[in-house]
């Protein structure tokens, strides 16, 4: 038992690290899956960043172009140019001219349109002078460098680049068209000269400008203003955000991967555009959020991905987990198998040891009797004829017992190896049984047991091995004599059932305990209790009997006899019946 426990402990110790390694492996796999998922998110985020950069660059370019165009306006034709621009350029929502601390255009009151009145209200803080136009511009921001840059830009956008001309190129993208819109202002011929004429020697060129993200009624608006000449008018435009959005979104790449979406969200959390087919719940939390640009404050692109989006990357985890499970199952089942084999071998070894000891004892007992009686007879000290007969009879009986034991051991070896050969012959089982009962009736009666015989009428002739059959019946009879000697009878029943001849050998002994009933045919098994420990035996009898019967196409089984006792049932098959 100690060894068995140590094997289980060893097995448990072996199992523990296996499970720990499996756990670690699974965790590593999960991490790897997370890494793959993260890379999918990163890929989407990079696309979002690319989109956000495109938006930023586009707006920046538009604003630079518009700013430059505003600087280029002839100051003498300012209002007309701005109005023309407002009427024709989709990028321009409103225009204004602020002069001498007051709004020159649009005019408050009836002369302005509803949109212009809203525009004035929207930027009231600026137009009423409560907030200066350059409130968010650092004094050093207008530098000589910027002026130089602005001059450079003047050169890079010739008058020939006009909206209509650009529209003729059909292959250019919507975004490019949008940028072209920002260059669309038309300079009146000769305006440069007029500009110079306008700028008197006392007027200092300052070229101040700024784009202001402006929040009104919780919505973003973008106002651009310029002041070209010191103390000159501040004028500018309000960008049409819907044009920007409408033109930008048609150019963005489509996202076709299922379960993924990029959503352009404004400062109030409204979905302004969605890329991708995934149905996004407005309350859903994005896996990543990317700010678009300082030019569109609080606007962002949210990255959404659901299980469908991860499905393509989950194959790795599924396959790896299956492989890991197979690996672990192989280890555990292998371990269990080895443990069982080890335990089985240990049990066999124990049973063999017990067998050798039993057989040695079994051999020694009759040999001792034979030797003792033979020596007595040899010394010729026994003169009584009856005693001599008794001694000789004992010698013969013990020799027979010895022979049967040796036969059993030899047969067991042959049966184990599958090398036992059967000599088939015609046997009349009823006569065969009567012969055995007659031969062993003295042994039975010596143990005060009554012989009951019930042989139904019929033809019991079969083709089988007589000696093997005899060995089977004798093994059962020996068992009955050994274990049921406290009983009153031994009953032999012979009858036919279908193709089988059924031979029952029953006794009214103590019977077989329930816990041993399923193992009585196992080799070397003995019921190790107070009763059997007094009885000699090798633990091979029933095992040999069962093997022989199976070899001969029959069977042997056991059933308890009520109220006590045991019945062994032999089913003999006629080989000719096949």
């Amino acid at each position, binding site marked *: 038992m100690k060894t068995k426990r140590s094997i289980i402990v060893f097995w448990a110790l072996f199992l523990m690290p296996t499970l720990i390694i499996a756990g670690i492996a699974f965790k590593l796999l999960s991490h790897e899956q997370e890494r793959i998922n993260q890379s999918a998110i990163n890929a989407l985020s990079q696309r979002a960043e690319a989109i956000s950069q495109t938006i930023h660059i586009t707006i920046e370019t538009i604003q630079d172009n518009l700013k430059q165009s505003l600087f280029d306006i002839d100051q003498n034709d300012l209002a007309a140019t701005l109005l023309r621009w407002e009427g024709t350029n989709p990028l321009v929502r409103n225009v204004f001219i602020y002069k001498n601390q007051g709004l020159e255009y649009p005019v408050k009151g009836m002369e302005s349109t509803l949109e212009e009145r809203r525009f004035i209200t929207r930027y009231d803080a600026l137009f009423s002078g409560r907030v200066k136009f350059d409130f968010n511009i650092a004094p050093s921001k207008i530098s000589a460098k910027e002026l130089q840059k602005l001059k450079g830009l003047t050169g890079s956008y010739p008058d020939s680049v006009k909206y209509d001309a650009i*529209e003729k190129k059909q292959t250019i993208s919507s975004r490019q068209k949008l940028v072209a819109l920002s260059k669309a202002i038309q300079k009146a011929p000769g305006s440069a000269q007029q500009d110079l004429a306008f700028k008197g020697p006392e007027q200092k060129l300052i070229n101040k400008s700024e784009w202001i993200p402006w929040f009104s009624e919780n919505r973003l608006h973008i106002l651009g203003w310029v002041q070209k000449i010191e103390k000159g008018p501040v004028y500018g435009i309000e960008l049409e955000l819907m044009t920007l959005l409408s033109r930008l979104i048609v150019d963005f790449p489509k996202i076709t991967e299922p379960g993924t979406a990029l959503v352009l969200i404004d400062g109030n959390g*409204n979905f302004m555009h969605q890329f991708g087919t995934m149905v996004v719940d407005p309350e859903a939390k994005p896996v990543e959020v990317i700010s678009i640009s300082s030019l569109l404050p609080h606007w962002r692109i949210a990255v959404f991905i659901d299980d469908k989006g991860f499905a393509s990357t989950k194959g790795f985890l599924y396959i790896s987990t299956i492989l890991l499970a197979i690996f672990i199952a192989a280890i555990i089942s292998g371990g269990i198998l080895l443990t069982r084999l080890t335990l089985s071998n240990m049990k066999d070894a124990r049973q063999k040891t017990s067998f050798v000891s039993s057989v040695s004892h079994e051999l020694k007992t009759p040999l001792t009797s034979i030797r003792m009686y033979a020596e007595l007879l040899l010394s010729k000290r026994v003169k009584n004829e009856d005693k001599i007969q008794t001694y000789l009879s004992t010698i013969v009986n013990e020799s027979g017992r010895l022979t049967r034991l040796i036969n059993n051991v030899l047969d067991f070896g042959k049966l184990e190896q599958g090398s036992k050969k059967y000599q088939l012959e015609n046997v009349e089982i009823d006569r065969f049984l009567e012969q055995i009962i007659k031969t062993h009736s003295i042994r039975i009666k010596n143990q005060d047991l009554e012989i009951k015989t019930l042989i139904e009428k019929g033809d019991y002739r079969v083709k089988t091995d007589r000696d093997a059959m005899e060995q089977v019946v004798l093994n059962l009879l020996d068992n009955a004599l050994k274990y049921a000697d406290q009983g009153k009878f031994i009953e032999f029943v012979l009858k036919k059932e279908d193709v089988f001849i059924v031979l029952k050998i029953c006794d009214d002994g103590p019977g077989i305990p329930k816990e041993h009933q399923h193992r009585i045919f196992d080799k070397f098994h003995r019921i190790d209790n107070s009763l059997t420990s007094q009885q000699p035996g090798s633990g091979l009898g029933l095992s040999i009997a069962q093997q022989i019967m199976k070899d001969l196409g029959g069977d042997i089984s056991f059933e308890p006899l009520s109220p006590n006792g045991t019945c062994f049932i032999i089913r003999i098959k006629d080989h000719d019946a096949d």
Partner: protein
Amino acid sequence: MKLSKQYHGRTIIGFFAITIIISLISGTAWAKLEHGKVICRIETDRSVLPAGDSQTTILKITLDAPAAPVNVKRPAVNLSLVLDQSGSMNGTKIEKAKAAAIEALTRLGLQDIFSVVVYDTNVHTIVPAQNAGNIQGIINTIRQIRAGGSTALFGGVSQGAAEIRKNLENDFVHRIMLLSDGLANVGPRMPDDLGRLGAALIKENISVTTIGVGTDYNEDLMAQLAQKSDGNIYFVESGIDLPRIFAAELGDVLNVVAKKVKITITLPDNIKPVNIIGREGRIRGNKIELYMNQLYGNQEKYALIEVNLPESKSGAKIKIARADVDYENPFTQKQERSSAVSYASFSSNPKKVAKSTNIDVVREYQLNLNALSQEKAIELSDKGKKQEAVKELKQSAARLKQIGTMYQDKELLQKADEQEVQSDMIESEGMSKKSRKILRTKSYQMKNQQLSQ
């Protein structure tokens, strides 16, 4: 002020090309131009005004579009159908929309450009802008449209506009036909936002006609988009009416006789503009500017202006307005101008004044005021002031009835009756989705003199 002077100067320069016939007797100015040109008229609500103190009067500036000339190739159309294929369109609506789209396509000619954009959660251009000649291929594509998903209306219109822009430089009549049956839930969805999109598109001469199906779409959004881009607006309760609406709209689009129409009304210095009724326009000093994207053949469009006249003596005759209409003739691709001048005479005889009433002007003025009342009623109802909304509608109906009775005008009386019934219904059942859509659509159609309904 500098601004108005510059514009005034330009208007004067353009006068030499125009023939003006002025009818002083009727008080109506006629500008009969050569055949095929848009005729401009200015009428007042009364040709003889009461002498005495300063007063407000109504000017009706009417544009009579000529019939499309026979034997002249009509202007080519650049049409983009933007169809809602969200889940709610499933069933009859999408099937009828497809049938209507195919019907519309078959009416186009080889010179026309056709594109189809569908939108759900995303936007798909299923037929990129192309010549309408390849009918079978396009029809097969349209038949494959399946409904499902959300409603990215803004994206759909944007994509439709992108398809139109592929041929923007050519002399096409540019038109987007937007069909939707549900609330926009992806992209900008405020009526103002879509209005701004419409305002931007009109600058490219792209008009958006909106067709609302069922009672679940946002009529304010659709109305703003159509109004700001000078398109038409339709409301149909079920998909069954879609082929008829598509045909009606296409009838307009294929019948354009004037494009980029700009009306400039110049008032003498002593006459002040007070208000523009129903239309969006700009008042600059004594100038009033209005814009219409297109005029359809045989259509009458007008603008109503309230002006304030100075004190006048009995028997005096003064010039009260001059109207110049600049537009592009799509058949010749040339800019044309039509003008009219209106004079008014004053009398201290009330009978003479009453007799000179121009019922056409009075009727249109009242109907436009009624359209404004309908819009106000919607606003009141939206604020939960149902009773005030009903009161507004009833008051307007009563005014129509009173004036209709006074001048025995059947149209005004009929309109008054209809409005009374509708206001009673709203009073008993509340402002239903359907009632709201009818009011919004009718008021828009009235203000814009939408021909096809």
